[in-house]
Structures are given as C-alpha cells and as structure tokens.
C-alpha cells in the first residue's frame, strides 16, 4: 500500500502454513489498514479462514511473521497474546456461541471474565448491546432456540462487547437469506461507524461485500494476488483476479471487445 494510506494494524509477511503434506499458504503478504475494512475473497478451500486464524494467534505459521500492532504473534508468549487479543472481536463462521449459556450470559461473558465491572454495570452494557442488535427480547433464550440470523447478531454483540480495535468476520452471512444478510451488513456498517474498528472480513458474498470494503484482497494458489480498492479490483488486469471477478460476477463489459463484434460482417 502506498504511503498516503493509513498505518497497518495487521501485517502478514511471508507467511507459510502446511497441514500435513498439504501447503495451504505459501508466502502470504497482506497488510490490513487501520480503521478500514479489508475483505479477503477467494475460492472455497483456499485458506481464507486459515489467514484469519493466523491473525488471531490460533494457528502459528511454519515460516513468516504475523505482526499485530507491531507484535509478532508467530512468536508471542501466552501473556502477550492475551494482551493483544483483548483488542480483538471475532464473529466465527458458525458463530461459536456457548450453547449451554443463555444469550445474555454469552454476551456478558467477556465482561465477566476480562473486566472487574460490577454485575449491575455489566447488565446495563449487555442490554445496550442487545438493544443495538434488536435482541432485547431474546436475552433468556439459548443458542439452539435462535434462528441463523439471530445467532449471528448475538455473535456480533459478543464480539463488540469489549469495544475492540479489530473485528474479524469469518463468512458473516453464510447460510442467511438476502434480507438477513442485509441486516448483518447494516449492523456492521452502523457499529463500525460508532466504534471505528478495523475490520477483516472473509466472505463469498461477491459483489455485495464490495460495498462495505475499503480494500479487497484475493487469496488464490496460496498467495495474496493483490490488495486494492473494490473498483480497482473489479477492473484489475491481474489474470487470477480477473478470472475470479469473471467467475463470480460474470464477464466484464469491454467496449473494444463487445462493440467490435457488433460491427463485424455476418
């Protein structure tokens, strides 16, 4: 990224990861701009979620560095890792709500375990977040009693509970219908404007996700093929990016190609 762009909150430098004999990531270089939304796209099974797991410190790379606010997670000790994770919020692909806890307890857990706030303050904060997510009537329900969209909203409320600096979204709208997806995007937009967090989103919802993105990165063949604005991404001449755009959005209109065909003699 150029010098005019904001400082990087997260940087992956030469990250390589293997699972058994399979190399999933080869020399991944990615910079996530602070305060902005970076969307990682790519075909299924390319390792997008593995990139997020590296950023979260859940997986350590075979080679390379994962720099979060300047600290290398690839070598961080548990104490440092926990300090950095205090700045994180995560919405997992399958939400990962604690299924033996009510919605209220799920959302309250980070505050109860990571802060010394009184129960009265915790209750007020949780109610505020549940209200923001339109979940105020569902506080005593259990995850198994919720719809997919509601689960995602509970997950988002829990992820935002400690006012994180970086929020990770792993396939935030997978399995949701169009209106529920739009609702999640609306909540994302609203909360990011309120809290100003850096967002890293892994998504298949192309091109809709481009509306939220400041930067789009394509993961293909184990490497990041480019990080650019959504507009530049859609017009990129890089062969793998072009192929991905055409596969997901249809062929790009080109006046030179399309119109010349119209005037060719039959």
């Amino acid at each position: 990224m150029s010098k005019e762009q904001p400082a990087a909150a997260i940087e992956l430098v030469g990250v390589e990861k293997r699972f058994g004999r399979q190399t999933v990531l080869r020399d991944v270089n990615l910079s996530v701009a602070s305060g902005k939304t970076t969307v990682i796209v790519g075909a299924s099974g390319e390792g997008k979620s593995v990139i997020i797991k590296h950023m979260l410190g859940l997986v350590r790379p075979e080679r390379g560095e994962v720099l979060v606010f300047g600290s290398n997670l690839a070598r961080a000790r548990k104490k440092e890792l926990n300090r950095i994770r205090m700045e994180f919020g995560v919405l997992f692909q399958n939400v990962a709500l604690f299924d033996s806890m009510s919605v209220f307890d799920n959302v309250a857990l980070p505050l109860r375990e990571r802060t010394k706030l009184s129960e009265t303050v915790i209750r007020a904060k949780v109610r505020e977040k549940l209200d923001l997510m339109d979940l105020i009537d569902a506080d005593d329900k259990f995850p198994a009693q919720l719809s997919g969209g509601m689960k995602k909203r509970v997950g988002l409320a829990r992820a935002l509970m400690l006012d994180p600096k970086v929020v990770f979204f792993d396939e935030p709208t997978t399995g949701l219908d169009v209106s529920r997806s739009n609702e999640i995007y609306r909540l994302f937009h609203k909360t990011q404007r309120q809290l100003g967090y850096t967002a890293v989103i892994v998504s298949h919802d192309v091109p809709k996700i481009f509306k939220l993105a400041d930067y789009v990165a394509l993961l293909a063949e184990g490497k990041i093929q480019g990080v650019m604005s959504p507009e530049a991404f859609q017009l990129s001449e890089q062969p793998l990016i072009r192929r991905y755009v055409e596969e997901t959005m249809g062929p790009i209109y080109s006046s030179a190609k399309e119109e010349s065909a119209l005037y060719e003699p039959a």
Partner: protein
Amino acid sequence: MGIFLFACLLNLVKPPYPLFPMIRQAHFIGVRSLFVIIFTGAFTGMILALQGYYTLTKFGSEGMLGSAVALSLVRELGPVLTALMVVGRAGSAICAEIGIMRNSEQIDALECMAIDPYKYLLAPKYVAGILTVPLLTAIFDVIGILGGYLIGVVLLDVNGGTYFQGMYASVDWQDIKMGVVKSLVFGLLIVWIASAKGYFLHRERSGGFGAEGVSRVTTDAVVLSSVAILVWDYLISAIML
C-alpha cells in the same frame, strides 16, 4: 498429555480461584453421582457379605466377616468401583462436553476473548474431580459396610458386635490412607484423561470430526480411564503394602 496436565495443575493453583464454577462442577461430578454410588456401594457390601459369609463358614470364621467386608471395601473395591462409576457417569460427560466445544470452535472463541480455557474450563473440573472422588469413595465404603451389615447381621445372624469389633481390630490408618491416596489419584486420572481426550479432539489421528469424532474420543476416554484406574490401583497397592 503430560504438558496438558501440568498446564491444568498450574492453573489450578494460580489465582484467581473461580468459586462458582468449582461448586457447579463439584455438584455435577459429586452430587449427581451420589445415587449411583449409594446403589453400587450397598450392593457391593451385600454381595461381599453374602460371598464372605459362605466362604468364612467353611473355616468357622464368620466372626471375621466385618473385617473382610471393611478391608475389601476400604482398600480396593471402594476406590476402584467408585472411580469406575464416576468414569461412566462424569468422565464420559466431561469428554463429550469439551469435545463438542472444540468441534464447534467454542474453545477457539474463548481463546480469542483472551479467556484461558485451562483456567476457565478445565481447572474447575480438576478441583471437583480431586475433591469429590475421595468423598464419594468414603460414602461408598460406609454404605457398603452397612450393606454388609444388613446381609451378615440382619439376614445371616452374624453377631452385630463381632461384625464391628472385627472391623475395628483389622482396619488401621494405613488401609484408610491407601484408600484415600487411590481415590485422589483416580479423581485426577478421570478428569485428566477425559478432558485431554476432548480438548485434543482435533488432533486425533483417526479424524476427530463431527458427532462421530466426539463419540469415538468419549469411548476412548472411558476405556483408557478404566484401564488406567486398574493399572494405578495395582501400582499404588504394590507401593503402599
């Protein structure tokens, strides 16, 4: 698994000490196992008395029934059968619970919230296991002795005074110490094996995915715990006798 045990025990002694989760786990492993422990304890004592009576009658030593029942229970059957019952009831549940949490990324979610799963999830189970298995063993022993009394004294007419006097004379502190040491070790073993099997579900060579993966590790945990209890029973007996 050794490093896992060390990390769990380290988090067990490191403050803060979450009292409510410990009580909840003690309730789950201890209180909710009470019925099965009382039931098996009573029948074990009754069978011991019945079999012991007919064996001792051959040598004209029915008076030794109390000591035979008490020594068998305090030294061996009490700790071993209690531990096996707890494996079946609580060990399998601990393994399945942690395995499902691993499968559904709930443990990853805890880590991402900077909540240490060793401290939050596992340490209370270790405290509960180490505390409740010896207590359950004590209850098993007492109920077993009373079961033996019911059969030996009430049904088979052994003298009640002789039954208890034989017990006082033969059971010494060394026997009780052996029972306590065994039950402490078994309590630790049960929680260690069950929690480790669930926690490392994703690293299972045979594939730890989905419901089948959870079912497989739960079975493994029960079998391994049961075998480990019998092996350690022998080792502790050999060392302490």
